């Protein structure tokens, strides 16, 4: 989850009131933030990506103001009519159809504010912007721009000076050679025409969704900003713009509209929307009896607007709250505003007697018998490596099941047997005292027309006198004691076991597994110095379905 740094001196200034540090730290979790760490001058908090308005200290403090009762209700965007415009040309429709923008004027930037804005931009790119694919933001020094702006497409031969460069580069080079170019060029893949924003002097200001131009880079002296968002989804574009606009307004900027036209685009209306909430739903869901007034107050503490209309509550939701889908989201807002700590746990009446699953019960029986026979339970991962499963055991790997793009080479293949992992366990325990007797009950995976999941039981015994007969006795005893079953062991060469000392386990004419003495060559590959015998059999289909 993304992290925001809150400096206590900034918090005090933005909050508009001196709240003791302890009170702040205590309150933060109740607006849904996780505290990462705390030092003398700052605190790091994690926020859930569904609340992009918490991607800066400004947004978080807005939330805190509500819960602390300093400011209630919805922050409204005050957007004055601006004079500037951006025009989209139809060629962008095929690659990145939507553009939207707003001006933020007469603000002040310092290093920390710039850092917060950049962090917000990155978090929005990754979350709502779906790693820039759905929407991406450009923030520019307004004074460097000559309006109107044009959102259009160019060839890859087009060139300009991108951020973090001193020389002019072609779009092609930016995509092929720069870090961000390489990271995000896949979004433009398959398009010969590349989207670009240029000003009326023909100067490039942005190559969305890759990089801005050096020309319009903001710094601590910048007072007036242009925020533009390009997107494949108009709704997402405006949502993102609303988060940025709201944040900049709290940071002290005045907002001015930018006229957006062309190719299905329009000037953004970052208006709140209304949802009607039935008080009964709130009380019924939370299990409380609170008055409509308390509900209204709670919503306002969650920085929403609310008013009574007859027996219902009309709730106004600011445009930047993209996380609110419907009335149930408002119920949560009431709970937060009311205070989770004020909800006392209750026990619902039980309507049923509980029970374990039948398979669980049967497996528990198998486990108890194996323990009774002197076997220690081990638990291995279901994802393993090719080396352990096939290379060390010399097993047939033609039906290998692998996962895509595993971060770890040791966890890339779904096991089709338990014994290889168990041999690895013995191999890691050669220093421990013998006899060593282990068993495992677990899921293995078989590739057929689809993937089959089967529960297996396997056991291994290792000590200087171990032999075929010992494990056959164990197998017989397990089947007889647990399930009154008998089995045949039919001579048959089985993987991992040594020829002449191995056979198939057959019950009622069905082959269910194999037993025997482990092949000394395999014992060698696992670097064991003791003989090993064991068996592995399927339980699915035998003692449960």
């Amino acid at each position: 989850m993304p992290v925001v740094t809150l400096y206590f001196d900034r918090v005090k200034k933005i909050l508009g009131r001196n709240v003791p540090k302890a009170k702040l730290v205590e309150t933060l979790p109740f607006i849904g933030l996780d505290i990462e760490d705390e030092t003398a001058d700052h605190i790091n908090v994690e926020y859930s990506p569904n609340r992009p308005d918490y991607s800066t200290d400004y947004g978080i403090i807005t939330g805190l103001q509500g819960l602390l009762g300093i400011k209630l209700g919805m922050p409204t965007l005050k957007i004055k009519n601006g004079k500037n415009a951006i025009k989209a040309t139809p060629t962008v429709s095929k690659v990145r159809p939507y553009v939207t923008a707003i001006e933020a004027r007469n603000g002040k930037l310092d290093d920390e504010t710039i850092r917060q804005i950049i962090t917000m931009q990155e978090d929005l790119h990754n979350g709502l912007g779906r790693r820039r694919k759905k929407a991406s933001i450009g923030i520019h020094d307004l004074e460097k721009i000559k309006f109107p702006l044009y959102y259009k497409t160019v060839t890859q031969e087009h060139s300009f000076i991108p951020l973090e460069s001193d020389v002019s580069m072609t779009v092609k080079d930016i995509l092929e050679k720069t870090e961000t170019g390489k990271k995000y060029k896949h979004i433009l893949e398959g398009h010969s025409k590349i989207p670009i924003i240029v000003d009326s002097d023909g100067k490039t200001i942005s190559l969305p969704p890759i990089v801005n131009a050096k020309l319009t880079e903001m710094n601590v002296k910048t007072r007036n900003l242009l925020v533009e968002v390009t997107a494949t989804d108009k709704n997402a574009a405006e949502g993102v713009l609303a988060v940025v606009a709201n944040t900049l307004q709290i940071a002290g900027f005045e907002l001015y509209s930018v006229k957006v036209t062309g190719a299905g685009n329009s000037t953004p209306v970052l208006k709140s929307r209304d949802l009607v909430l039935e008080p009964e739903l709130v009380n019924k869901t939370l299990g409380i009896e609170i008055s409509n007034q308390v509900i209204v107050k709670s919503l306002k503490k969650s920085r929403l607007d609310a008013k009574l209309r007859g027996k219902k509550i009309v709730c106004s939701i600011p445009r930047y709250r993209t996380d609110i889908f419907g009335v149930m989201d408002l119920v949560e807002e009431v709970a937060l505003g009311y205070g989770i700590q004020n909800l006392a746990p209750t026990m619902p009446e039980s309507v049923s007697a509980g029970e374990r699953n039948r398979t669980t019960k049967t497996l528990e029986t198998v486990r108890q018998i194996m323990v009774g026979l002197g076997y220690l339970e081990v638990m291995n991962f279901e994802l393993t490596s090719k080396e352990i499963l096939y290379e060390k055991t010399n097993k047939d790997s033609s039906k290998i099941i692998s996962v895509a793009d595993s971060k770890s080479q040791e966890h890339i293949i779904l096991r089709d047997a338990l014994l290889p992992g168990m041999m690895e366990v013995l191999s890691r325990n050669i220093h421990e005292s013998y006899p060593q007797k282990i068993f495992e009950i677990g899921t293995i995976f078989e590739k057929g027309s689809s993937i089959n999941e089967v529960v297996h039981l396997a056991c291994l015994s290792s000590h200087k006198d171990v032999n075929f007969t010992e494990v056959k006795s164990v197998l017989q005893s397990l089947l007889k004691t647990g399930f009154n079953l008998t089995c045949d062991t039919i001579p048959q060469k089985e993987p991992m076991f040594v020829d002449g000392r191995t056979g198939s386990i057959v019950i009622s004419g069905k082959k269910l597994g194999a037993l025997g003495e482990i092949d000394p060559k395999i014992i060698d590959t696992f670097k064991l110095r003791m003989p090993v015998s064991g068996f592995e059999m399927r339980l699915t289909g035998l003692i449960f379905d």
Partner: protein
Amino acid sequence: MSQVLHPIEQKILKTLAEKKNLTPEDLSEITKLSLDQIRRGIEWLKFKSLANVVESEKTLVTLGKRGNEASEKGLPERQLVNYLRSLDGYSCEMNAAKDYLKNEFGPAIANAKKNGWIEVHENRLMLKGYHDLSSEEKIIKTISKTPMGVSTDNFEDKDALESLKKRPEFIVLTSKKSALVGLTEQGMEAAKSVPDNIDFESVSETSHKVEPDAKVVRAIDVEAAAPVIFAAKSHPLRDVIDEVREIFVSLGFSEIIGSNVQSSFWNFDALFTPQDHPAREMQDTFYLADVKAKTIAKPDQIKKVSDAHKKGWNYQWQNEEARRLVLRTHTTCVTIRELADQKHDEARLFSIGKVFRNEKLSYKHLAEFHQVEGVVVGKNVTLRDLMGLQTEFYHKMGIKKIKFWPTFFPYTEPSLQSMIYNEKLGKWVELFGMGIFRPEVTKPLGIKNPVLAWGGGIERIAMLRYGLTDVRELYENNFGWLRSVPKCQ
């Protein structure tokens, strides 16, 4: 005296109480027990702090060539005395004695004179006085009885030993390291209660077959250490899983199970996670390579779920994407499918199983771990009920201090996380998450009543239970740990 002493111990105690410090060899000699029995006995006594052993260096005296001769024929001075006694008048000329004793003449005269056995007058030797064994003779005699050698400490007349040492080839001194066994104060005390008659014979070694003439079964040292053996048992993590399961059952929940491999539809789409959501990306989730689900759900279910996505998330929902097979990232896919297929109006269900995340393994992350999830379906269930159930669950786990914070999960609204206070760590730890399934999840699947859901990872509980700081230890299957970790914590 609570300690039971073996006859061997009794013998050693009694002997040492009389003779103070002895070597094992001496003890063997005195007690007539084999050296092996003595050594065992000493070990037992040491273990009980009744005896201690001091390593010491001793000088052993054995007979040389002439010493051996002397032990048969006597020392030269004795030979002289005997010679004189055989003569009439008990005297002779010097020369006669010289002829008789040859080379030994000189020392014989000197020592016989020293012993006061003879007198010399003019040129004549005369016997006189008594001729008891001299100190030197006693030494030779003692040594001749102990061919292994006798410690110099055993001889009181150090001068005699010194004089024998000066006479060539009579005695040989070798130094030898030796353990000297002595009694501690408790040992001295214990020795007092040893009976005079130590009974080796009339006791039985076993209790199950008392020999006919045996009076009693020999008492053994019940305090002695016994060899370590290991009980076979279930895995410690399994025990925690079983405990969690039992608590759910006791709270009226019935267990449901499902596959590890799921279609993306049930793992994500049915839970309102949009197809372009970062959680669905390969870097977080294990997708199976080269294989897709054939059928994923009933056509009606697919249609309604995809409609909810289009409405809520405003994008083109792809059936192909929903068919991708994943290793389930939570057990919620099992729960939601059960609810969608069975349409329970009232139910308490739970599921425990493996879940998978494409993570690099570290001390706090595994690529696969166990998760439990419980749901309550009911017309009148509330968020406070959910908190109550959670509290009750923790109480049954022995956790008393609990608090709730708001949080976010894609498929529940409202959502909470529970924090528990861990006494061992002395801090609040995040444990289970919970919430009420979103209408966007339940409505398309035809689930009418509210669904409370809660759950979390079991390994985390196991870590707290067993005091582990590295979650990987749970899967190392280290026998040292598996064999030694107590079943009850």
